[in-house]
């Protein structure tokens, strides 16, 4: 074991440390100085404090790109390389946007707790991305999840929010049980909690299969794929919109990232096959079946939804299904396409939730009817919504199109003699066609149907700017996908 220089350790840990300090500052400031201030002042001030902390973390993260090589602490408990730094940056960015959305909305009376919990949750995600050790994975995942359960319940007055939180928590607890049980089996068989050492020792055995199954089930709950998805629609609808956005984006990015590490590195030897002519047991088979079910059920059920948050929940279930196609490819390019997709997906969804959050209060709710004629009431945000929804539907040349394209290409390429995975690709394309239907229904409300209320909706400039930046990112990902893909490819190769 080569000694790690102290300055590298410091560089590796600073982002997390800054966020911890930021969270406590927010808590303390709220109790000590802001007790008598109005809600708006508290909300804005503490939001700004959190954003400052996150910006500090972002600066610290960019410093990590200057490190001479990957830094490994405490036997893979913390691994910092360029890929993890990049994804940490993505998560920090998503958290900043979540906070920007929150500053405009109603987060209840406990403002300090709200922002502190949000920051703690993001710390969990950062750790989740930068670990290669089973126990830390579990702890980081729990840190994130528990923060999200609490945040879901933050609309204290609303029964829906409480119900959502309880359901989310119940499911989360079951999933943690599965995950812990699975990980303990993996440890029991391989004698190590280090992902890379697991890969070295993988010998196929029943118990390891059980461990793998339970791990996948645990993550299946976290990323909400069929049949472990049932909490998502209720949680998304009941949770405050910024929190729903955070659940749908930040936690998904981190979960998918760590799942890539677990499956592509740790369980590299147990992939099995999911070809149309040959199914053999392994994680590709598990992911292919749950992914296919998610694509079908998520898209079909989304059609009938009237509440846009609920609709986005089902759409995110379907998107998790698409992502699994990249996993099933089980190649390095498959992993790259998953990471590309996750970034595009998170940005697009956060943008869509952001527009919802910005408009819902003034529109009177987040059912589709509330957004009728929005194109005339809030033309700018409506254009952004158009971009986000078309990207979700995978319309070229937006980011969502290339995201799907790379996933499908990876699946086709991984077995290109008999195109064994073409069935998943065809299902994916067909289900994208279905998804077009419900995405368009939302846009129809924004653009075609006239609403009763015709008054203009004014939204703060900082919010518009932040959401416009997300839209620009989605467009740029569609305009220069190859560059981003090449970057990710290079980083994944070093993993």
């Amino acid at each position, binding site marked *: 074991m080569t000694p790690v220089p102290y300055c590298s350790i410091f560089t590796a840990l600073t982002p997390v440390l800054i966020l911890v300090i930021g969270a406590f500052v927010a808590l303390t400031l709220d109790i000590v100085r802001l007790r008598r201030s109005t809600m708006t002042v508290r909300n804005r001030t503490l939001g700004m404090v959190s954003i400052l902390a996150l910006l500090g973390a972002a600066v610290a993260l960019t410093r990590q790109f200057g490190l001479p090589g990957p830094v490994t602490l405490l036997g893979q408990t913390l691994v910092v390389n360029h890929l993890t730094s990049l994804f940490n940056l993505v998560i920090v960015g998503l958290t900043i946007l979540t906070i920007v959305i929150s500053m405009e909305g109603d987060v209840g009376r406990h403002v300090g707790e709200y922002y502190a919990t949000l920051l703690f949750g993001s710390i969990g995600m950062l750790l989740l991305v930068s670990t290669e050790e089973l126990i830390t994975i579990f702890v980081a995942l729990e840190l994130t999840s528990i923060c999200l359960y609490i945040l879901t319940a933050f609309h204290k007055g609303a029964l829906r929010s409480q119900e959502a939180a309880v359901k989310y928590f119940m499911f989360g607890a079951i999933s943690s049980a599965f995950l812990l049980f699975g990980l303990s089996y993996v440890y029991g068989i391989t004698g190590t909690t280090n992902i890379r050492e697991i890969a070295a020792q993988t010998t196929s055995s029943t118990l390891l299969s059980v461990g793998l199954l339970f791990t996948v089930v645990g993550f299946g709950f976290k990323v909400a794929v069929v049949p472990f998805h049932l909490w998502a629609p209720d949680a998304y609808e009941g949770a405050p919109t910024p929190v729903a956005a955070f659940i749908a984006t930040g936690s998904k990015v981190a979960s998918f990232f760590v799942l890539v590490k677990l499956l592509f590195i740790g369980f590299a030897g147990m992939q099995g096959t999911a070809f149309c002519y040959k199914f053999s047991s392994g994680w590709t088979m598990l992911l292919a079946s749950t992914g296919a079910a998610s694509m079908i059920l998520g898209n079909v*059920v989304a059609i009938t939804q009237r509440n846009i948050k609920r609709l986005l929940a089902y759409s995110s279930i379907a998107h998790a299904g698409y992502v699994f196609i990249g996993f099933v490819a089980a190649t390095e390019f498959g992993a790259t396409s998953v990471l590309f997709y996750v970034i595009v997906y998170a940005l697009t969804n956060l943008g869509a939730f952001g527009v919802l959050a910005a408009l819902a209060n003034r529109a009177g709710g987040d059912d589709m009817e509330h957004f009728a004629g929005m194109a005339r009431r809030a033309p700018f945000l409506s254009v952004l919504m158009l971009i986000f929804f078309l990207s979700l539907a995978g319309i070229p040349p937006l980011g969502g199109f290339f995201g799907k394209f790379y996933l499908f290409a990876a699946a086709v390429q991984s077995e290109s003699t008999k195109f064994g995975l073409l069935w998943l*690709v065809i299902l994916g394309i067909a289900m994208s066609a279905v998804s077009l239907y419900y995405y368009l229904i939302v846009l129809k409300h924004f653009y075609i149907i006239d609403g009763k209320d015709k008054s203009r909706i004014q939204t703060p400039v900082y919010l518009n700017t932040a959401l416009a930046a997300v839209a620009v990112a989605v467009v740029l990902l569609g305009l220069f996908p190859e560059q981003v893909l090449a970057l990710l490819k290079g980083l994944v190769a070093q993993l």
Partner: protein
Amino acid sequence: MVGGQILSVMNLMWVIAVPLLAALATPLVGRVLGRAIGWWAVAASLVAAGLLVSLSGSVHSGNPPVWSVEWPAPDWGMRLALYADGWGWGFGLVVAGIGTLICIYAQHYLSDAEPRARFFMYLLLFESAMLGVVLSANLVGLVIFWELTSATSFLLIGFWHTQERARYGAYKALLITGLGGLALVAGVVLIYLAMGTTDIRELTARAGEVQAHPWFVPILVLVLLGVFTKSAQFPFHFWLPDAMTAPTPVSAFLHSATMVKAGVFLLGRIHPIFRGREEWFWIVSSVGMATMLLGAYGALRKTDLKALLAYSTISQLGLITLLYGFGTQLAALAATFHIFNHAAFKAGLFLTVGIVDHETGTRDKRVLKGLAKLMPITAVLCGVCALASAGVPLLNGFLSKELFYEEMVAHTGRGWWWWWWPAMAVGGSVLTFVYSLELFHGVFFGKLDPHLETDHGQSRGHGQPHDPGWGMLAPVAILAAICLKVGIWPGGIERYILDPAVAAVWGQPVDFTIKLWHGFTAPLILSILTAITGLVIYWQRHRLADVQTRLAWPFGANTIYDAALKGLVNGTGKLTDALQNGRLRSYLWLALAPVVVVLTLILGREGWSRIWPAQFSPLAPAEAVLLGLLIVATLAVVAVNQQRLTAVIVLGAVGALVSVFYLVLSAPDLALTQLLIEAITIILFLLVLWQLPKSVPALSTRGERFRDALLAVGFGVVMCLVVLAVAAANVPKPVADFYEAASLPRGGGRNIVNVILIDFRGFDTLGEITVLGIAALGALALMKLRRRKEDRR
């Protein structure tokens, strides 16, 4: 020369970029120009057209300019590449040319209340996308621009809508063309997988290879689905009439020269790649034939002039499709020629109907009569375009119709049943003749409705209907002039646009001349027959209407669309109610049952012998009693769960029994921890439950409870087997060995349990203590809260 070449190549890029940039600048320019913003759009379209004209030299020399960048994903055959062969160039010229005219017209058509800048912005965006479709050098680029035309047309159509009917139409248009677009995407993906390229020129060069490929039929079907939905071909024709609710300039542009023509444009594009195969002929020609007849028949049933035009467009597109299906040189010539002719006269007709609507406030053909008296110039212009559509000599429609007949007759040598084609062709043309006359003679001649003459109320014009200003007449006049010019003297257009276009569609240069007079040939006889029959039917048209009413078919494609949509929504609604009913119980079932199944499969594959441990450690009587008590206590929890407090206490008993079990297995520390946790949990439970009703209402039926019990038992059994499997497996390194070996050298203690607790798992112990402490604090807080409440009372 090389410099000139580069310049012309850049011009190609600017053809698309100019309307795009102009569109993006429109909101800003609109602030300066105000009402006159339409002229900005006119200028942009003109520049695009001019740039295309500047390319004519290289197009005619058979050396099409190509412009490409390695973007956005060249590794995947996705690069933005444009080229102007005769087909794309000629089509682009039509798009930009008619676009210019539409902009002039719209500038005068729109009322001041309508948001002009946004309208022209969308129009230019759409034009740019359409030019992208026709100039794309590879299929991926074409598909992307194709989808962009759908999206921008959605903006254009959707902008005005206030009526439910119109919204329904816009949505349907986008849904049908969008679905077709996805089929096209799938087709292009298959082409790429099969051929390794999406470059149109390369595919044309390797046409034989494409046709011989085993995936030819799926590719063909998918691509044709895209074509047929976009060009409103049977059975997807039903979206077009409902999309006609857009303002007239939009309909004129989208449904004469651009949007729907994108489908037949693509048909011409892939013509050299696919033609010649039997499947191509049968699918394309039959669909085209059905569409042509249905469209023409449908046009006669409509009383709204715009709906009539919509059906006539469907019918004409069917004719073009039918011709491309034949895959012969003459058919390619006829189809290509007719596309250009149709664009001219149909745009003219749309614009005339727009004028009539603008002046009289209605488009109902039963009301509109004898307008020639009030608007003579409009009547003349409409006459030219309508007669061109009917196929009257000296007008452009006649020439392409003659070619059409010639092609149909040419195949009759293959057997008597091939007369079916010319027969149907005449049938379609007769109906076309009739509705064209209705448009012209019906609207402008006959007795003028006095109501129309005086009614100013609903008219959007001012006062009595009259010919509009030059701004609305000039575009129609130019189109009518083109119809006349081509019809009388087809020499110019033939050399300039048609020559390179036909060469591109056919795949190699074609030698032809279009003449007005062919001599007394079969086509001429058929034309005369068409005209006579048409006149007779027009004269007796009220009888035709009776027949049509009697034949009215209640079950159309629209009914299927509506029913399918409704069924989809209802079905998914039911599915949602079944799955997402809000109850955790049924959620658990859905989530856990699959896990049980997969676990059973994994264990079953392994076989009983490897799950069941070879030997069990002997069971002492005390242990057996303890286990029995544990099982009874656990069952009791289930039994008494309706009574909350009792259930909690029994649960505490279960915990206590477990800790006793630990004690028996000589783990006193664990037993102690467990006992402490049990105690605190019960206190917490009781404190919280105090606030709740004493008993749980029965929420589930007997059947549901049975179902849940089944899952519980199943899951329990499978998990039990999983645990047993551990005992059966040979775990490579039992962790106990490590502690045994390391406790003295590393921990310095002989009591292994102590060393583990204090040394190896020191942090763990600290964590446990912390958890206990926090739980105790929580309990304390709850108790204090209760006491304070009681004090207040």
